[in-house]
């Protein structure tokens, strides 16, 4: 196999409205999530009009998750995706949620999801210890996509599967404007009315800005290939919801 590419790929540029540099970003974003944990599921339910849970389960199944699998869900937040994974893998499998925000993890624990505090860029997990690795709507919050994907590859066993769920702005101008109106203005406003929590409102406003500024899907796909993944694909629903799937090669020499 040729040497894996190594370069830095932040998921979005520095967003100066929110933070001046990378170190501050980590701290601030974590604080936003910590403060929003108790409200997050409510916001998500409103935002996705309660279709989100079924979609997540179907996405996991489409990506090939099966009974008995050992799963790591990175950026698990309140544990919605991890809980769906637990339903699928059953008692013979195992699911572990990883997230840097204890405030979000408190909700995941309430759901019965086993968790550790950690980051995708530096996973505290042994090489090859997972059959399946998932990340739902958290890709925009890591500091470097390449470092993160290299870690994912390390933690997956050879042949193990990856699923990343992420939204991207629609390609059409009108679609973009509508989604912007919805996510940038309507969702933060509803969040404020429903929670009266300024941090939660700010988080939802930040959410849109990271979506809009995120590197395009093609770059994410390329970074996955550069990190040594094979069968790299993206399946899109409604022009917004993206499912990136990939596999760690079965043997390091044969498949690349």
């Amino acid at each position: 196999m040729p040497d894996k590419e190594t370069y830095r790929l932040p998921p979005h540029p520095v967003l100066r409205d929110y933070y001046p540099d990378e170190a501050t970003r980590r701290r601030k974003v974590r604080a936003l999530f910590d403060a929003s944990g108790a409200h997050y599921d409510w916001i998500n339910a409103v935002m996705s009009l309660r279709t989100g849970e079924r979609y997540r389960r179907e996405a996991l199944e489409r990506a090939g998750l099966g009974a008995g699998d050992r799963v790591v869900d990175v950026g698990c937040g309140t544990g919605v995706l991890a809980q769906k994974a637990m339903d699928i893998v059953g008692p013979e499998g195992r699911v572990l949620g990883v997230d840097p925000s204890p405030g979000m993890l408190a909700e995941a624990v309430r759901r019965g999801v086993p968790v550790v505090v950690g980051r995708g860029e530096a996973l505290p997990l042994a090489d090859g210890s997972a059959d399946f690795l998932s990340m739902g709507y958290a890709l925009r919050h890591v500091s470097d996509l390449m470092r993160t994907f290299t870690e994912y590859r390390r933690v997956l066993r050879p042949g193990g599967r990856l699923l990343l769920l992420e939204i991207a702005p629609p390609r059409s101008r009108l679609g973009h404007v509508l989604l912007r109106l919805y996510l940038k203005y309507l969702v933060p406003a509803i969040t404020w009315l429903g929670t009266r929590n300024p941090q939660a409102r700010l988080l939802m406003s930040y959410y849109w800005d990271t979506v809009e500024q995120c590197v395009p899907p093609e770059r994410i796909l390329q970074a996955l290939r550069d990190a040594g993944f094979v069968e790299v694909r993206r399946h899109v629903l409604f022009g917004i919801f993206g499912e990136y799937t990939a596999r760690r090669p079965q043997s390091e020499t044969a498949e690349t």
Partner: protein
Amino acid sequence: MLDKKLLEILVCPVTKGPLIYDRERNELISLSARLAYPVRDDIPVMLEEEARELSAEEVEQYR
């Protein structure tokens, strides 16, 4: 109490080296990184910036 199966797959996020669970102090010790990761509310906090640096004497103790 930390789950045994969880302890089997946890490694130091910095060095990927093994961890020692110190029940008394409720910390996960990484000798390779000379760091002690706290366990809060039964949840291991595996972040470099939250870890405590081990003194040379402590490192000797754990060896």
